[in-house]
């Protein structure tokens, strides 16, 4: 299985980058976009976000995530039930044909735990995604501030004037 390297360029600190999209990079039947990681606020716990679009005709499953921060990385989903926000591990995550796994704060994220190399703002986090059909995809993910990550979530029409 070949290894594809995908690099993301996100201009950090631009005053109005709130609706910028990272380049769409196809690997096999998959497109990976909008990858970013906030610099962890805690020494050992952080999160990572990206979006996977399945352009193929078969389901794909995201089996595992590894990062250069060390420790473990697992896909989680935030759910709000009866006013309680909970974080649940999803396990391997299947993406149907033409479907998208979109990660964003308050929804899906990859949680990094027991981090041994704490990513700093401006660093690049090396990430390897393992898929059931496409195999391994390597990403280089920009490390942003939490403030920038929150900004990236703002939709059109939310720009400041």
């Amino acid at each position: 299985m070949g290894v594809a390297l995908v690099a993301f360029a996100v201009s950090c600190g631009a005053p109005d980058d709130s609706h910028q999209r990272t380049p769409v990079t196809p690997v096999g039947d998959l497109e990976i976009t909008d990858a970013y990681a906030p610099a962890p606020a805690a020494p050992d716990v952080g999160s990572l976000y990206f979006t996977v679009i399945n352009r193929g005709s078969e389901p794909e499953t995201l089996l595992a995530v590894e990062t250069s921060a060390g420790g473990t990385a697992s896909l989680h989903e935030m759910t709000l039930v009866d006013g309680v926000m909970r974080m649940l591990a999803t396990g391997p995550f299947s993406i149907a044909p033409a479907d998208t796994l979109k990660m964003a704060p308050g929804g899906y994220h990859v949680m990094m735990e027991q981090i041994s190399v704490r990513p700093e703002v401006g660093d690049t986090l090396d990430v390897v995604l393992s898929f059931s059909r496409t195999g391994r995809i390597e990403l280089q993910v920009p490390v942003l501030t939490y403030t920038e990550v929150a900004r990236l979530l703002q939709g059109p029409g939310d720009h400041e004037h």
Partner: protein
Amino acid sequence: MKLSTRLSTVPLLAAIATAGCIPDVPPRPEELRGASYSDPLEKPDFTLTTTAGDPFTFRAETDGFVTLLFFGYTYCPDVCPIHMANIAAVLRKLPPDVSREVKVVMVTTDPDRDTPERFGPWLANFDPTFVGLIGSLDEVNEIQGRLRLPPASRYGEDENTYTVGHSARVIAFTADNRAHVGYPFGTRQNDWAHDLPLLVKSNWGAR
């Protein structure tokens, strides 16, 4: 007719000018981006310990300020830091006469792991003036109950990797020591930038 209208407008304009454009009435619910409480919350009187080890009597220490109160924990990599980062970013951009009237207090829902040594630097990542408070989980849940928030509860057996379910709402107290509005997760920086000046300049609890 027209003259009398003009004349009656003049004292009103003068009153607004002398009051520094403070509106005469509190903001209406539809003017705020946050979720208004039909029955406002009374600011609870409790004392917990800051990350510096000092007692913090919430009601007295925050009296007269717009006070944003949040319950969360440092092993939360998503909702909690995003909330804190959004509020901190907006406070940095607002005029000083607004931002100095706002206090931010976060109470940990994970006192077993959120030691002062861990929680203090975590919160200071966002803004060194934010106040981090630690108490027993029973104390914290009792306070949350008074604020009509569900209790925080622990999920998972592993001592290192358990998670804590908790309310994702930031409660905004105004100078009248009541909360008329709360902010769910998903509140954006522009929403905070819109509402915080209104909350500061509202005459809820005008002194």
